[in-house]
């Protein structure tokens, strides 16, 4: 048991680091959102550079534009890339979820058409699964596709779509047969996000930011050749996509949270004196530290499994639920330290440039996005511990007959 690289790992790391130092742009670009327009060109250029050097989709076969490498190599490259300033990555959803789905369930023409351009960063994908009436219940998709001639006409709405506003293509889950049980009546398509009948509207979040979109479909026409997988197989195809999602949402930098509190507590005082000397805060810091470190070493365990060529255990499933709760708890505790001053969110005036006020407003989203605390506990209980599903009233009836309260 040690933290050092094997000779093989060390060699790869050195090579990756050297390449990054030679090629990585020196300035990081702001997040791609509705608020600050995307700087997609820098991202595309960086992605292409990586792809040409075999550092994009490292584990994918070379013929698809990947690096033909091992999982541990992609982990090491990721660690090294994180150390240098690189543009934001608008390709994660496409390369992490959508394109692998096309590779697994799409037809050969589509694979030839889409995989390489995506790896090269020429085309960006978004995932169109969630719906207003669905939420945690993704299989409740109501967006309707009806056959018309040799194609389909689609009407409906999707929600919580990241990157829809700058995506070229989307992977769309629709209902093709409401007369069969919910999981059997869906079909998957890829769509051109710029096609007529597709309208993207930003979602205004409580934090003020807009990182997600609503996407409306009005008589959107798609060819049957845009179908990914068979008619009625949409749910099985969607599961391929979803398997990756929850991992990809993941952590979110609590690792540094307790250090921030440390910094804050160093120059703030409580009734009892300097906050850092306050026993209550000290115990909380210890508890936060232990959780954050626990998550860190849990990912090390996962990475070890990868570098040993094994399949990681289920332990990574705890990451988001712990991270989100910690973020909210630490932010609230920090504001309590700032006392009356804590209400000030102006980065010019608030301690640590308002970092805690920001995370207080972001935390509720993290507790919900990519699976709520409650859904994630269900998943741990069912998939990790093997406890039974809750009673399901929506499985053996026609989709149109499932109670919706409306």
């Amino acid at each position: 048991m040690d933290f050092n690289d094997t000779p093989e790992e060390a060699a790869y790391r050195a090579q990756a680091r050297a390449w990054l130092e030679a090629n990585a742009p020196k300035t990081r670009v702001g997040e791609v959102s509705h608020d600050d327009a995307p700087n997609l060109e820098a991202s595309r250029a960086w992605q292409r550079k990586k792809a040409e050097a075999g550092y994009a989709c490292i584990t994918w076969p070379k013929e698809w534009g990947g690096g033909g490498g091992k999982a541990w190599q992609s982990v090491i490259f990721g660690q090294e890339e994180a150390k240098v300033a690189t543009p934001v990555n608008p390709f994660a959803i496409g390369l992490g979820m959508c394109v692998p789905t096309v590779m697994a369930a799409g037809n050969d023409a589509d694979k030839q058409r889409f995989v390489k351009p995506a790896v090269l960063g020429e085309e960006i994908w978004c995932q169109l699964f969630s719906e207003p009436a669905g939420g945690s219940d993704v299989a409740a998709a109501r967006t309707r596709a009806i056959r018309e001639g040799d194609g389909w006409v689609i009407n409906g709405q999707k929600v919580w779509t990241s990157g829809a506003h700058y995506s070229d293509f989307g992977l769309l889950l629709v209902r093709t047969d409401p007369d069969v049980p919910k999981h059997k009546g869906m079909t998957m398509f890829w769509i051109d996000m710029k096609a007529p009948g597709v309208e993207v509207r930003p979602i205004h979040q409580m934090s003020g930011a807009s990182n997600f979109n609503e996407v409306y479909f009005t008589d959107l026409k798609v060819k049957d050749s845009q179908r990914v997988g068979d008619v009625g197989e949409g749910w099985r195809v969607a599961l391929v996509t979803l398997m990756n999602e929850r991992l990809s949402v993941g952590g979110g930098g609590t690792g540094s949270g307790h250090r921030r509190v440390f910094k804050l507590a160093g120059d703030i005082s409580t009734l009892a004196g300097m906050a850092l000397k306050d026993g209550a805060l000290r115990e909380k810091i210890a508890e936060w530290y232990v959780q954050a470190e626990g998550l860190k070493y849990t990912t090390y365990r996962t990475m070890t499994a990868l570098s040993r060529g094994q399949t990681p255990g289920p332990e990574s499933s705890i990451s988001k639920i712990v991270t989100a709760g910690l973020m909210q708890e630490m932010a609230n505790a920090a504001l309590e330290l700032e006392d009356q001053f804590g209400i000030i969110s102006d980065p010019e005036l608030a301690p640590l440039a308002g970092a805690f006020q920001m995370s207080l407003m972001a935390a509720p989203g993290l507790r919900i996005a990519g699976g709520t605390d409650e859904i994630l506990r269900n998943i741990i209980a069912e998939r990790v511990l093997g406890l039974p599903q809750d009673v399901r009233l929506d499985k053996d009836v026609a989709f149109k007959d499932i109670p919706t309260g409306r």
Partner: protein
Amino acid sequence: MDFDFSDDQKFLKGEARKFLEARSPVSAVRAVLDDPAASYDKALWKAVAEQGWLGAAIPEAHGGLGLGRLELCVIAEELGRALAPIPFASSVYFLAEAIMLAGSEAQKAKWLPKLAAGEVIGCFATVERPGVLTESQIAARVEGGKISGAKIPVTDGDIADLAVVLAKDGQRSSLWLVELAGAGVKRETLQTLDPTRGAARLTFTGAAAERLGEAGEGMALAEQVLNRAAVLLAFEQVGGAGRCLEMAKEYALQRYAFGRPIGSYQAIKHKLADIYIKTELARSNAYYGAWALESGAAELPTAAAAARVAGCEAFWFAAKESLQTHGGMGYTWEVDCHLFYRRAQQLGLVAGAAKAWKERLVSELERRNAA
């Protein structure tokens, strides 16, 4: 044993709810939130003044209704429930209470009628930096009746006419009344977590200051004002928490997942049961605080601290878990959850955070055990 509000007080509460549902719907709160220029609802403020609520606890001799603090408590619960975007707490719980506590007859005669009529908006300016207020940290000074220094944050400081300011003229601090329309006052509106309750930085450069209460007693008086305000704020918190529970319940009944209302899942049922438990504990502590406030009991410091600690916990928990119950919708700007999430922080910080009140509470208990 008569540990509840009277029928008259309950009637007043019912009337207050009806009034606020009509005059202060969430749309009105959002109007203040969405308009950077607006920091309170002027029409509502006027209407509330006409109701006489501002003077509910002010003696008739000074233009008030001469009712008691208990009447103020039931009104406070409804204001909290409605997220009323008005400087009620600053003017009534802080300024009016400070003047009734420490003011001279002349000061009472001059200001209380204006407060009762809604002609004067007040604010309470004590803090100057992050962290808990202690006398040693106060830099604001008064020399020859002129005050200099800066106070930040001052809730409603951007719209107030009259401020109670904590500042030193000797070694120790005193309370001072400062008219903000006068010369030597600079106000800067602050960006805060709850734009429906404005706050400002007040910078004084030789503004006229009139002493309020005993010289050198500033900290002691400020604490007494805070004790009174803490009880009344606790009722606003109980009102807010109760409304969060209602919203979560309504949503859990109409929102379906996997063919069932989410309110039929234990994860949601038990979450809401926990909100109910914390809210009832906060209500009972608030009632005790109301008794101590109304009866002027020696237990007020303990009762106020307990009411504040329970109130902060209940509203914060209710606000964040009600939002969680709403799922993705709860995280959108359009759904009202974040208005309560913001207000829970505003009420939780405005009179000092629960953390500091826990320390106060335990010190009081120690003193009592020693006695």
